[in-house]
């Protein structure tokens, strides 16, 4: 049986929170492994840092910062929803979380290029 239409803002906010969380869970082990190379294999780290200067990698970093920011502000929204007195502005808050995350990641990108 077909599931109901999910095209409403809070369902998208749920999916975005899940997908960003999964993305970060995949990224963080790689991130820590790379940091560990500073101690165990500095040449490999330098090689990667040179690779990270490529524009396409910068663009990927923009995506990464967006995921981080949207997961943080989305998470703050959920904490507020569950622990603060109820607010009817959930759709506005979810949209705000995406907006702030976009602002932060774009600023990061513009500084990086």
């Amino acid at each position, binding site marked *: 049986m*077909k*599931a*109901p239409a999910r095209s*409403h803002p*809070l*369902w998208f906010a*749920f999916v975005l929170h899940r997908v960003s969380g999964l993305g970060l869970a995949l990224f963080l082990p790689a991130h820590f492994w790379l940091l560990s190379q500073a101690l165990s294999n500095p040449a490999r780290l330098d090689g990667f840092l040179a690779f990270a200067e490529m524009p396409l990698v910068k663009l990927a970093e923009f995506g990464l910062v967006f995921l981080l920011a949207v997961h943080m502000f989305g998470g703050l929204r*959920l904490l507020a929803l*569950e622990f603060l007195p109820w607010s009817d502005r959930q759709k506005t808050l979810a949209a705000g979380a995406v907006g702030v995350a976009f602002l932060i990641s774009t600023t990061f990108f513009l500084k990086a290029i």
Partner: protein
Amino acid sequence: MTAAQETLDVTVHRGTTRGARYDRFEVPAHESQTVLDVVSWIQQFADPTLSYRFACRVGMCGSCAMMVNGTPRWTCRTHIKKVAPDGKLLIEPLRNLPVIKDLAADMDPFFDKWTAAEAQHHPSQTRHDPIEAIDPTDATRAEADLGVECINCAICYAACDTVAGNPDYLGPAALQRAWTLLNDSRDDGRQSILDAVSGTGGCHNCHSMGSCAQYCPNELNPMRAIAGLKRETAKSFFKGKRNA
């Protein structure tokens, strides 16, 4: 209605959970026609073996909810013009529930969970006590009032993806009723309600997707009620720790 839409092309779920098929019917289109009108026409003029459920026809009893083109709706108050402007309809029984036959979903799991959530009145007084005055402007009473228009139609239950993924989850309707009673000064079951809604399948399973509030035909907000339960159960948990 334009000439092209003198008939509706209606596909209807037949059979049970164990075996289902889809039948197609051509139904004459009318002005101000509801989905329930269409289902009734099929049963009266095309196939008398079609099973479905309805009672009041005015959006009060909550018995006629079905999936209409994939969306849970109260069929008696749903106009064809609004949900199927092209004249094509897919009508199925409510999602997330077993099917008795055709369009009649088995509501037992829904009401069993209503009971499991302690969503029944726990009297604090007897008939011999004087009638307690209730202040309608009291903030707690106002919070309880928000949920009392629930008609148990199970549309929120059918809309909820958490129910679909977790058969133990009590669901939006039962939890909203528990929240209403928790805020009702005449109810004496505070601790049993908090215990019931904080266990396996309780309010903390909710992912706040908001489909319950999106599709509730009475425009109630079970997500708000569940957030309230999450707050109260968390408070009670930390208080319990301190007392221990």
